[in-house]
C-alpha cells in the first residue's frame, strides 16, 4: 500500500509518501497507524495527537475504523484548513 503525508505530518515524518507493506491482519486504518507507530520516535512524534489525524483512502475521507480492504493509497494528514 502506498502512504502519502501532507502538511505538518509530511514535515514531521520528512517524507511526501512511501510504500508500506502491512501484514494481512492490518485490516483498518487504525491497524496501519499502529504499525507506523512501531517504527520509532519519528513516527510516534508525527502521529502523537490522534485527535488531530485525518485520513483518506483512495481519495475519499475515511475514519480510523475504516477497513482498508483493497485500497491503493492511504493518506494521513492534519485537519484541513483550506478556503
Amino acid at each position: 500500500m502506498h502512504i502519502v503525508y501532507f502538511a505538518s505530518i509530511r514535515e514531521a515524518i520528512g517524507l511526501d509518501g512511501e510504500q508500506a507493506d502491512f501484514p494481512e491482519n492490518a485490516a483498518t486504518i487504525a491497524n496501519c497507524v499502529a504499525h507506523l507507530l512501531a517504527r520509532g520516535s519519528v513516527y510516534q512524534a508525527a502521529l502523537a495527537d490522534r485527535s488531530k489525524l485525518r485520513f483518506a483512502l483512495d481519495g475519499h475521507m475515511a475514519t480510523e475504523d475504516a477497513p482498508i480492504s483493497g485500497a491503493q493509497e492511504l493518506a494521513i494528514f492534519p485537519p484541513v484548513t483550506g478556503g
Partner: protein
Amino acid sequence: MIIVRVEPGPLDAAAELSVLAELGGGALASFTGIARSDTNDHGNVTAIELEHYPAMTLPALDALVQDAFARWPLLGCVLVHRTGLVPVNQAIVVVGTASLHRAAALESTAFLIDRLKTGAPFWKKEHRSGGSAHWVEARSSDDAAADKWGQ
C-alpha cells in the same frame, strides 16, 4: 454550467464569476476568501501557502458541487481554489452559484464554502515577516458550520 478548478496562479474573482451572469438566472451569489495580513508575535502575515492533495482535490470539490446541485435548483456553479504561495490581499478561493431563486444561490454558496473548509484537502501555512512559517490550526467553528448542513 460547472467550473471546478485548482489554480496555481493569481485568481481574478470577478472574471471567474462573470460566466454565471449569462445563464438566464435572476440570482447570483458569491463568496471570495482573501489571504489577510493579521499580526502576532511572529510579525505580519506576508503570504499564505496552500498545500493540497492533487489526486483527491478535484474529485472532492466536484463532489461538493454535485451535492449542492442535488440540494438546490442551480443553473451554474464556479468553484476555484488557489494553490501554492498566495501573497496577502490575493484571493484564495472563489465560490459562486446562479439560480432562478435568491435563496438557492445564497444558501448553496454558504454550503459550498462551509463544506469546502472541512472536506477538501487543502492546508494553509502562514509565512510571517519575521521569516517564520506556521501551519494554520483547524477551528472547531468550521466543523460546526459544516455540520449544520446535515448529511
